[in-house]
């Protein structure tokens, strides 16, 4: 039976270059430069950001990959869970801040 999001498919990420190698090479170079090195942010800080984004975007591949990356950069479960809460609270805030639009329109609609 075929399923979406097979964990083994993560290993095939490199195959996105199959029909557009130059673009994939550009992407992976950029990707490596951003996430794979210490810069103004440490690799651990970047891994925690990526873990939060993985949850916000609901990408199971990314969640597996960045849970591992967090561990391999020395993060602990408390830091990882807080990062997920940042993603969650941002999504809640983004939903709630749109209620201002609702309030604005509501005022127009009510005499």
């Amino acid at each position: 039976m075929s399923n979406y999001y097979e964990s083994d498919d993560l290993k095939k990420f490199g195959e996105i270059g199959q029909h557009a190698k130059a673009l994939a090479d550009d992407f992976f170079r950029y990707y490596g430069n951003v996430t794979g090195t210490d810069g103004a942010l440490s690799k651990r800080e970047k891994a925690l950001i990526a873990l939060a984004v993985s949850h916000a975007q609901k990408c199971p591949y990314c969640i597996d990959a960045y849970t591992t990356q967090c561990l391999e950069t020395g993060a602990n479960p408390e830091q990882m869970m807080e990062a997920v809460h940042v993603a969650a609270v941002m999504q809640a805030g983004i939903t709630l801040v749109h209620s201002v639009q609702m309030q604005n329109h509501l005022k127009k609609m009510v005499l």
Partner: protein
Amino acid sequence: MTPVVQLKLVPRPSKYGFEGLLRARGIDLPPLSIDTLQVNLTKLCNQVCRHCHVDASPQRREMLSPEGMAKCLEILERHPQIGKLDITGGAPELHPRFDPFVERAVALGKHVMVRHNLTVQLDGHPQTGQSKEYLPQFFARNRIEVISSLPYYQEYFTDAQRGAGVFRKSIEAMKRLNAAGYGAEGSGLLLNLVYNPVGPYLPAAQAGLEADYKRELKEKFGLVFNGLYTMTNMPINRFKLHLNKSGQFETYMEKLLAAFNPAAAASVMCRSLLSVDHEGRIYDCDFNQMLGMGAVDAKGGGLTIFNFEFDRALKRPVRFADHCFGCTAGAGSSCGGATA
């Protein structure tokens, strides 16, 4: 040559091709020196850690004989080139002749290191109940370098790997070592900690993790130590069993292979160390010891402490297998931490 040694010369199957990779990269790794004799005194331990490559536990009985200990000391005495004695186990302090072995090696002027699991101080001997609370003072009196595993500066990871309650006991044992002068600036009493991942992933960068450990252990518990050694989990024995049971063995091996680092390969510990088991057989490292891959001389003869000749051991070809990818991945791994 005994039949046992001949059996060990049968090449081990190599699925991932460590030696083939070395040849393809033109990397030759002959021994450079023998500066450390690492002696496994016993597989008896008060703990049962989930990653333990020795498969040590309170049920193990293997012990190096008094004759074997005397032979190790004789080798150390006859060879000033071998400046360091690295005592490991199990919990080596549970060997009944541990104390005099240490004292005699120190009297020979050797730098003596003990792989001390911390909790044995509080647990004592699992079979006899003998107290081991004297160890901090014993170590300090003999100016032993203490090397202790602490998988993380928090309870969650530590207890997951080493058993419930181990973190709390380890912190108490470190307090006692600190009280004896260990880790204190200017004391010259070295307390080095060992980090290893709690699962199938590579260690974080050693320097950054050491800074985290120092900050957290100082702030939360008032503890000090000298250095942190990061080590990679070897895909053998108990850890391999876990990997196989959880379906992660292949993925872990692929990770190690993908992270192969020639600079780490150049600094593997088997190039400067000999490992001795409880029967006096010699190995290229502790991991080869646990796999029964005995060291051989250039003619294929098995090496033991009872037939030890320095030049013969120095000119031996190191025996590699796929588990060696564990020492060459990323920043490298050795009994002294990262190598690259």
